[in-house]
């Protein structure tokens, strides 16, 4: 275990429509065993004791499954380590004396609420427009009544691993939400239960995605590279197929 000294440049912004700027903070003796969020906790404790406004940032489970946390660290969403969320990123990934530039996930569709905290409800509206399966309740169905091949179930599960953190949008040079939307469409369209609303789902979710102000996918592959859950762009290829089929039959 060792300690490192850091120089932080953090985006501070009072509220959505107020101008923001970078503030510099020096933070000494940060244990390399800490997570990135614990490091921010230490900073906030220090700021609070000094009577200053602590840095607002989103977080919840702190074990990489809720999708609440996330900032851009030195230009990379969720920081330099692969396949982890910001809460799982440990300070051992940094060197003594490093300068860390910490910015919010930026997108036209993600307005900044305060500091590093962004409003990702555009994702919720994409889900609301079709990311569900409508089933009328009845008797308890038998678990094995609908056979699903294991590889298909695995593909659906891989897509369902998306925690909706928004790193894909934050890292996309075009601010596109294709990886998120494609994962949410894929997890349902691969399974028998998702067939009923299959076409309408693809049409509606893509329409909402476009309406929310996300950019157009140009296959830059940055999303896949920063995704903490390794969602594959194979899902984007699947969404392209889904959308084309849907628009030609029911568009």
């Amino acid at each position, binding site marked *: 275990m060792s300690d490192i000294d850091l120089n932080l*440049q953090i985006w501070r912004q009072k509220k959505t429509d107020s101008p923001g700027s*970078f503030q510099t903070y020096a933070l000494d003796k940060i244990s390399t065993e800490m997570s990135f969020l614990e490091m921010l906790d230490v900073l906030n404790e220090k700021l609070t004791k000094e009577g200053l406004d602590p840095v607002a940032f989103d977080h919840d489970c702190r074990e990489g499954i809720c999708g609440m946390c996330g900032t*851009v660290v*030195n*230009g*990379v969403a969720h920081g330099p380590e692969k396949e982890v969320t910001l809460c799982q990123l440990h300070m051992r990934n940094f060197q003594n004396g490093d300068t860390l*530039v910490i*910015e919010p996930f*930026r*997108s*036209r569709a993600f307005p900044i609420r305060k500091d590093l905290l962004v409003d990702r409800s555009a994702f919720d509206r994409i889900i609301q427009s079709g990311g569900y399966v409508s089933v009328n309740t009845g008797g308890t169905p038998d678990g094995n009544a609908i056979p699903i091949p294991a590889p298909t179930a695995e593909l659906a599960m891989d897509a369902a691993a998306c925690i909706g953190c928004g790193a894909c949008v934050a*890292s*996309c*040079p*075009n*601010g*596109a939400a*294709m990886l998120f939307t494609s994962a949410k469409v894929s997890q349902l369209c691969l399974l028998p239960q998702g067939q009923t609303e299959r076409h309408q789902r693809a049409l509606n979710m*893509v*329409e909402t*995605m*476009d309406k929310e*102000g*996300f*950019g*157009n*996918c*140009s*296959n*830059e*592959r*940055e999303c896949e*590279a*920063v995704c903490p859950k390794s969602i594959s*762009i*194979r899902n*984007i*290829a*699947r*969404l*392209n*197929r889904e*959308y*084309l089929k849907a*628009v*030609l039959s029911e*568009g």
Partner: protein
Amino acid sequence: MWPIKFISSSIGKKIIMAVSGLFLILFLCTHALGNAAIFVSSHAFQTYADALHSLPIVVLLFGLGLLVILLFHIGFGINLFLQNKKAGGSRYAVNTRVIKNSFASKTMPYSGLCILLFILIHVFGFNNGPADIKISQLVKLYLSEFFYSVFYIFSFCALALHLSHGFWSMLQTFGINHPRYNNGIAKLTLIVPAFFLLFFSGIALYFLTGLGASY
């Protein structure tokens, strides 16, 4: 109206880029096939050119079709470029690309512009040559000239760069992404641009280096 909804959606625009791109690649293949006659002899090339132009209706229809496809590719490309600039743009103080080899994908609009400039000069040059010179001699006249030839080779490099992202991107847009085929697709994404670069630059170098002196 579904076609309007389709072309105004983000995925619809992508698919139009991919379909028009596919047609343009197919055109490049036929163009390369025709030009292969240059390596046989000037007589072979002239025979091919005469045979082609003995069917003016076909030339007109294909020319117009190609123009429409090209305009679609350029128009939608510009539209996507402007929209994405607005949605993305330079929004971070520190910009880090995690993906290596992102040069081709980053420069698509610019390599595209280089190709457009080339097409304009190429089409103008070969349609407005001196009236008394046959096309088979005109190609030698033009490409023996140093700057003309170098400009051609530079443009083919831009084309290869464009295709080194465009070819894979087109297949991804068509929804072709499968672990079984991805290795093959990655290889094709190198082979296709390399083929066009070597083949078309080969014609320019053939005349520039004097290899085609007895052509």
